[in-house]
Every structure is written in C-alpha cells, then in structure tokens.
C-alpha cells in the first residue's frame, strides 16, 4: 500500500520541527492558529466595547484627565433618553434611513431588472451606473454642495428647467424643509448602484429554464414576475437592505461634507450628534452611554432582521 497523504506530510517535516510539534495536541495546534485573530479581535473590538460600557456609568471627560472620575450609575442614560434634541436626531436618522432604503431598493431593483435584459452594451451600462459608489463619500459630499448651489448648481438648474421655476429660488442645503431630502438624494445617487449589483446577482442566479417551464405552464410575464422573479430575488434584496441600513445608521462622512448637520441641526444624524458630544463638548461618559444605546439599537434591529432573512431563505 502506498503511504497516505498524512504519512507523506509527516516524512516531509524536518526532524527538529517534528520533535517540537509532536509534543502538542491537535487542540493546542488549533489554538496557535486562531490565537492571533482572537487577540486582535479582543484588542480592537471587545476591549473598547467593554471599556465604553464602563465609561458610560461615569462622568469622565477625556479633556480633563486629572479630574476625579465619579460613578453616576444610570444618570447618563436617563439624561439621554429624556433629551428632546436627541429624539429629534433619532427622527432625522429614521427619516434618512427609511427614505434612502425605499428609494434605493425601488430604483436599484428596477435598474437591475432592466440591465438583466440582454441588450447591446449592457456591461458598459453596468460599469457606468456603478461609478458613484466607487467614489469617496467625502468627495461626493463636497461635489454635491456645488451641484446644490442655487446660482450655479447643476441640480438647481435642471430642476428649474423642468419645473419652469427660477433655479436660485430654492436652496437644497440651506432650506430647513429641503435639507433632509438633499442628503437622501445624494445617498440614493451614490448607493443605488450597490443595491442594483446585489439585485443583479439575484436575478442572474435564477436559471432561465425555470422561466421556460413557467412559459410552458402558461404563466403570464406578470405572474412570472410575482411568483418567480420576486420571491427568488427577495433574499438578495433583504441582504441589500441590511447592508444599506447598517451603513446609513452610522452615516457620517457624506452628510458632514454636504450639510455639516445643518441648517441648524436639521440634518444632524445620530452619529454626527454623537461626534459633537464626544469630541467637541468632550462629554466622554455621556457620549459613551449614547454609543451604547446606539449599539444596542443597531444590534437588536439587525438580529431581528437577520432572523427574518433566514426565514425567507428557508422558505
């Protein structure tokens, strides 16, 4: 009988190394392999999380390292949850989150559906459509401030042209009523391609023969869409929503560049608000509690959502 792969591997191991390894159990070797990753995970993720939770019960301020730190119990949490301004930023975030997801899913799925039809140059179109998401959010935010410029901005010009109004009669960024929509539009412009790509992957995963079977089973195109296309793309679509939801809950760079949270604090999303509390007002203990609340919210919503997603996948 020829030697097995293990025996050959054992023969190929240099004697000195073999001697060292021989003393270790399989379990020990496994630990050696995963230890670096676990160490990094503890150092970068778990420790800061625990430290944040600890700080959230104190009145610690990082710009006053010598001041005495007092434990204040649940005081920080109580203050945050009863603060009307914070509830306002929560609402702003919810508005931003819901509308970006709705628009991106609708437009992204429609684009994917169209691109999936075989036509000349659809690869080129895919590439062109995908451009916005390849840009840096800071750059996008910066450029859209120019596009939204009332006098010379392209966006205002096009809207003015289409609605026969004066382009300088409105300011997307400066107007309290328009600013929440200004950030929704830019985020949708930038991230719809991402949703489209995921939907496209879903659409391409449906074998053509299933449509042929449906065709023979006398299902109309409309029925094929509702009974085959949509249910089979749904898990992909939900995944896209999960990604976009998490991303937009912590949205920062794009909006800071675009509106800086203004006018006033109309577009101040929770992450921007949190950054102000932590690194402008230096209320470290307070903002730690704030961060923990956000963490629990996102984590809770995401786990409920992932459960739903798995149910859809099983179906």
């Amino acid at each position: 009988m020829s030697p097995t792969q293990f025996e050959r591997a054992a023969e190929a191991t240099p004697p000195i190394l073999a001697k060292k390894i021989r003393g270790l159990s399989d379990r020990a070797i496994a630990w050696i392999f995963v230890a670096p990753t676990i160490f990094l995970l503890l150092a970068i993720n778990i420790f800061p999380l625990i430290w944040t939770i600890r700080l959230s019960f104190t009145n610690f301020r990082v710009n006053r390292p010598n001041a005495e730190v007092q434990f204040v119990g649940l005081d920080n949490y109580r203050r945050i949850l009863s603060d009307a301004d914070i509830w306002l930023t929560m609402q702003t975030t919810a508005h931003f989150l819901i509308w970006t997801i709705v628009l991106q899913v609708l437009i992204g799925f429609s684009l994917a559906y169209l691109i999936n039809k075989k036509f000349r140059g659809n690869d080129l179109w895919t590439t062109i459509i995908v451009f916005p998401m390849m840009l840096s959010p800071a750059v996008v935010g910066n450029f859209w401030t120019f596009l939204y410029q009332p006098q010379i901005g392209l966006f205002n010009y096009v809207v003015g042209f289409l609605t026969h109004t004066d382009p300088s009669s409105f300011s997307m960024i400066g107007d309290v009523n328009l600013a929440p929509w200004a950030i929704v539009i830019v985020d949708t412009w930038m991230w719809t391609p991402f949703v489209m790509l995921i939907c496209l992957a879903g659409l391409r995963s449906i074998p053509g023969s299933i449509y042929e079977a449906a065709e023979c089973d006398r299902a109309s195109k409309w029925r094929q869409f509702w009974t085959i296309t949509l249910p089979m793309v749904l898990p992909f679509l939900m995944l896209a929503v999960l990604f976009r939801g998490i991303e937009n809950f912590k949205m920062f760079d794009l909006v800071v560049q675009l509106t800086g949270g203004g006018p006033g604090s109309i577009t101040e999303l929770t992450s921007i608000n949190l950054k102000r509390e932590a690194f402008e007002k230096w209320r470290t203990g307070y903002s730690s509690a704030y961060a923990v609340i956000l963490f629990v919210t996102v984590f809770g919503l995401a786990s409920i959502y992932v459960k739903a997603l798995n149910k859809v996948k099983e179906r």
Partner: protein
Amino acid sequence: MAEVILKNITKKFGEAAALDNVTMIIPNGSFVVLLGPTGAGKTTTLRMVSGLDKPDTGDVLIGGQSVAGLAPAQRNVAMVFQQYSLYPHLTVRENLAFPLKSPLLKTPAAEIERKIKEVSEVLQISHKLDNKATALSGGEMQRVSIGRALVRNPTIFLMDEPLSSLDAKLRADLRIELKRIQAKSGATLLYVTHDQIEAMTMATHVGVLEQGKLVQFGSPREIYENPVSIYSASRLGQPRINLLPASVFGGAPNRACQIGLRPEQIVQGEGEESFVKRVEHLGDQTRLHLSFKNHNLITVTDAHTKLTEGDIVRIRPERPFYFDDAGMRVA
C-alpha cells in the same frame, strides 16, 4: 389533444444545423419516441413544438393550425424538462398546482386538490407534497416535473428524458404508468429518450434522428425489423446489431459492404465454425461472445447453455441485413 405536424423545420445554432429540414406527423393520440445520440436534435425538436425556440424555416401545425406566431402558453403544450426546472422556492404541492392556477384555465380549488392527489399517487410522491422542491432527490424532482405536466390536459405532452434519473424499478413502474395514462386519456406524446426499452415498450411511433435529420419514422417493430441504415439499426436491439464485412459469409448482394446481424439472425449449430471467447450468464438469457474469422460477434443463446470458453459453435446468417459503403441498407 390534436395532431401535430412539423413541416420542413430547419434550425441552426451558429453554423451547425440542429435540425435540417425535418418533416414529421405526430398523429392524434400517438406516443412518438425520438431516438438518437446527444446532439441529434431531439431536444430541439421538442422546443420547436413547445414554442420555446422558433424554427429558422418551416412551420409547426397543431390541430391543423399554424402556431408559428404563438407563445408556449398559447400553444397549450406541457413540457417535462430534462433538468427538471422545478420552482425551487415552492413546495411540491405548489409546483404541481402552478400550471392549474394559470388564469387561462381558472381551475377551481377542489379540482386542483383532486388532480394533485391523483397525480401524486400515480407518481408515488404523495408523502412529499409539503416538501420544498429543493429538498428532494433527483428521482423525486423528476417525478414532480412529470407530475406538473400530467395535471394538465394539453394538446401535446413533450417529455425530455423524463425517466432518466430514476432507479430501475421505478423506471419500469412509471413506464407502465405513462403508457397506461396515455392509452386511457388518448393523450398525444412526443418523448425523447436514450433508453431503447422505453422506445420499444411505449412508442406507437419511433423517429430516428441523425445530426438533425429525421432518417426513419415508423413503428418500433418497423425500425427494428426493417432499418434503413446501420445508424437506424444500431438504435434498437440489445445486444447491439453485429456488423461484419459482407464478404465473411457467402451470398452477399453486389453493392453490399457490410452485413448486419441481430442475435435472432444468427442460427447456431449450422454453417461455419466460430470460437467462443466468453459466456455471460444474465439469468434469463446467456450472451455468447464469438470470434468468427477474427471478427467479434455477440449473440444470445439458451439460458442454461453448456457452452464454455474455447468451445466451437457453428453459425449461419438467417435473412441478414446488408448495407452499402455509406451505411445505407441494400437488402
């Protein structure tokens, strides 16, 4: 149910002709089996009738009407796909109900339930009705795929190797079931297979396809007993027809190049000597591998034969087939 006619159908994929001027009449209530190796154009023929592909030239008539411009749904054909093509996100029950729920049919719920019950019993999948279509074995998927066609009452059933991935016993059962259903309901079937037992036992007509051409069309007996060419003769018969140079036995006609001998065309115990190379006992029959003037032959003999390797058997051809140098039948 209706008569289906293919008229001078040609279909090319790029340079290669998948179908080359095929004309075929599928009589109402017939069970037509298409035979031929991979690439002969069997599946393409089904797709022409179903309307999933359009012919380059030629016409398909269903019940005397040209269906050239009609989509598959309008043609009312039921197709069983070789790759099953079940709806993966639906249960077996929903898969079977899918065609019945077509707005073109408006089947009442009780009728759908009755049909599903009936078909799933025939196909022995009743216990799997609430499984997802993806949670089935290959053979079960294939049966659901057949069931999805059988719940309907189409003008013609198109089946692309529907029994290929079933085990031997189930295949034998379903062969009989399909034939029974067809005989009872008077359904018209166009059926693609590699399996010659299916062809022999179920077909009322067999069409032999060779590189996109319909080379012979007739009853299974006709094809078996009166093949037009070596190709046609090789489609049916187990063990396969033996082909030898025409000159090894005397009495060959002029243009004959090869002689074709099926086991029953070889008389044992008379004629010239051959040498037994191997004896295969299959139970109900015994196969003899013979060497005759340095040519190999396989024939069938008595199940309880005393012959063993190295014995000498005399053989003589009995009304053999003769083929010319192009493989066409001369006598």
